[in-house]
């Protein structure tokens, strides 16, 4: 090849590469690691969030990477080495405190003022994401526990949805007599389902005020209200309310049992709404949902608050502005309407005003429940879920410890004793997440 042609050719190649390079560099990348989503759900995220966001912000390029159920472990390692994504998606406030303490997360207070998050998001959730007075995380979904029931089955037997603890026990006894399992439940695929029931009794029987005091360290977990709560839960177990196959059934199988009428009620979380349309219509049944009734003297029903996952921005992010803008988009009314219409229960961002949001997912019960929940939270009528507000080792012990009580290998006193000891140890280590003032 002639020398001149060669030089001209390579210069041309360089020039075109530079042009392409600068064209790509126009849009700044924002990386987001997500947990798991099946292909249909990945499509919803793409059409509901990524594409509209990129269209609205041509100078940004949001990309998502599905890391599977091991996301939190990969995140921990990545952030330690400084190579994490821009949008840090964690499994809850328990993980935020140690990350914030280690300086891995960016303080978001400037963005709060810029985007007006204090007005649009329920204040209690802003408080939950704070560490040392600065905001580090926003919750992506919030969930609560309540009581699903088979409305059709209830009508057939002339039963009414319970409003007090006494009513729920009478109902359960009546169901046992009819050979119907009172509480559809199963932990075969998710052992931590145990803590759903502990959360319910701690809030409905011991009361959220007492739980708050224990979380702040003002009273021990061995105090009388908690003894009463765990004893009640144990009595329900011993009477057979949870059915004979608790350790063999998955939660989906348990839900199906309620839809077919083999079980009557299911104390569980709002994430089960995604199953209603799969199981109830084919069984010609209608689903109902009420808050779990509370004991005398407690203003109920109490809605224990849980945070499913949180959004933060990595401290080492090269595009913190872009990441915050993307997070702000996810918290918009438009994104709420779109995502909750196709994927109820997973994208329930804690917006304070749901009146202008349009959700159309064939589940009017879900919309009503979420509005009731948002109002209850606004009125301070909320409780505490163990997986959001307890530090990690305490929460993990709770799951196995309650099994020991149920199976007679430990007493309520021993269980609460060890729970308290573990909690105090972790409190001393600074591992308890932020508890908003009531």
């Amino acid at each position, binding site marked *: 090849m002639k020398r001149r042609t060669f030089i001209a050719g390579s210069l041309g190649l360089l020039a075109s590469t530079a042009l392409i390079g600068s064209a790509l560099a126009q849009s700044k990348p924002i990386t987001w690691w997500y947990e798991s989503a099946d292909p249909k759900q990945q499509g919803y995220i793409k059409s509901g969030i990524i594409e509209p966001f990129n269209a609205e912000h041509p100078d940004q390029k949001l990309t998502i990477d599905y890391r599977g159920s091991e996301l939190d472990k990969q995140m921990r390692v990545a952030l330690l080495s400084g190579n994490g994504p821009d949008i840090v998606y964690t499994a809850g406030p328990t993980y935020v405190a140690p990350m914030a303490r*280690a300086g891995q997360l960016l303080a978001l207070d400037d963005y709060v003022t810029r985007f007006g998050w204090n007005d649009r998001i329920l204040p209690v959730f802003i408080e939950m994401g704070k560490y040392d007075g600065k905001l580090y995380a926003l919750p992506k979904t919030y969930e609560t526990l309540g009581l699903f029931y088979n409305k059709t089955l209830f009508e057939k037997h002339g039963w009414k949805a319970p409003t007090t603890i006494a009513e729920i026990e009478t109902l359960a006894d009546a169901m046992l007599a009819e050979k119907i399992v009172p509480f559809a439940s199963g932990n*075969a695929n998710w*052992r931590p389902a145990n803590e759903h029931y502990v959360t319910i009794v701690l809030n409905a029987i011991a009361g959220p005020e007492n739980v708050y005091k224990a979380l702040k360290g003002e009273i021990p977990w061995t105090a009388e209200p908690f003894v009463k709560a765990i004893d009640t839960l144990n009595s329900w177990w011993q009477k057979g309310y949870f059915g004979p*196959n608790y*350790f*063999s059934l998955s939660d989906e*199988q348990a839900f199906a049992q309620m839809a077919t009428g083999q079980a009557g009620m299911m104390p569980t979380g709002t994430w089960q709404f995604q199953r209603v349309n799969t199981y109830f219509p084919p069984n010609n049944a209608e689903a109902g949902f009420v808050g779990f009734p509370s004991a005398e003297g407690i203003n109920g029903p109490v809605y224990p608050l849980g945070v499913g996952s949180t959004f933060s921005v990595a401290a080492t992010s090269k595009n913190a502005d872009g990441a915050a803008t993307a997070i702000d988009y996810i918290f918009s009314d438009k994104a709420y309407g779109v995502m909750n219409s196709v994927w109820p229960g997973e994208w329930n961002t804690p917006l304070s005003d749901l009146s202008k949001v349009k959700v159309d997912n064939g589940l009017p019960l879900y919309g009503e429940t979420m509005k009731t929940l948002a109002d209850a939270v606004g009125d301070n009528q909320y409780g505490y879920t163990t997986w959001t507000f307890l530090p990690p*080792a305490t929460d993990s012990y709770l799951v196995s410890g309650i*099994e020991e009580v149920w199976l007679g290998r430990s007493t309520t006193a021993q269980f609460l004793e060890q729970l308290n000891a573990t909690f105090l140890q972790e409190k001393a280590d600074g*591992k308890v997440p932020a508890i908003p003032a009531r």
Partner: protein
Amino acid sequence: MHRLYLVPTLLINVVIIFIPALLTVALAFFRWDGITTPVFIGLQNFQALWNDRVFWTALTNNLIWTGIFLTIPIFMGLLAATLLLIAKRGSMFFQVIYFLPMIIATAILARVWQGMIFSPVSGVNGMLQRMGFPTVDPLTQPSTALLGIATVDLWHWWGFLCVIFFAALRQVPQEQIEFARLEGVSFWKTMRYVLIPAIWPTITLMMIMTVIWSFLVFDFVYILTQGGPAFSSEVLSTLAYRSAFYDLAVGKAAAVAVVISLFGLVATAFYIRAQAKEFHQ
């Protein structure tokens, strides 16, 4: 000069195995949540383990597991291998059948047993219950949970031993077996005086490996019961896993790992001594 050929493998070994192992041993003396900086606390992790009843339950379960796996699968494997040796026709077919569970991913095997066999709703167990037999799901009772998991792992594991022993048996000199047959020696006496002594080194090796692997057992336990119900099927590795990734207590997990390694080391020491003795004979 020829020693330089060792360098590449040695390098990989040092970087991937030796250094992380040293780090784990070191971490056993620190308190670390996996995110902030580690804090030196001396022997506190080991003291905490000594006082932790779940640790003792887990250790006992590992010892029970070792006991089960040192006897049942080895006996089954030897018996089947000897039968395969005698019945030459079809030995290839049976070898494949016995070995098949070994190839299937443990996660799938565990779910198959959990959902298609043990489940009182969708499994064989459920079918038996509906027919009137008072069977229970072993994974749901504290007294049988570990045995239920061991059953699944036994089904998965014994075929491997069978194939190994069969390969060893085929090395036994034909004359010895012929001689025993001609002398009219019974089947059991042939096994006891000819076959087993002939493959004794293989059997010892498999027993030592069983001891080491019994202290490492994790997958089936974690997938089937996560150590439950009520810690009854907890083993050392599930305890370490939970401490490291759920309790955010990496130092404690490292301490458990050190305990596991100590048992493995003891077993290895026995094996090397036995080997050395045999070598000198």
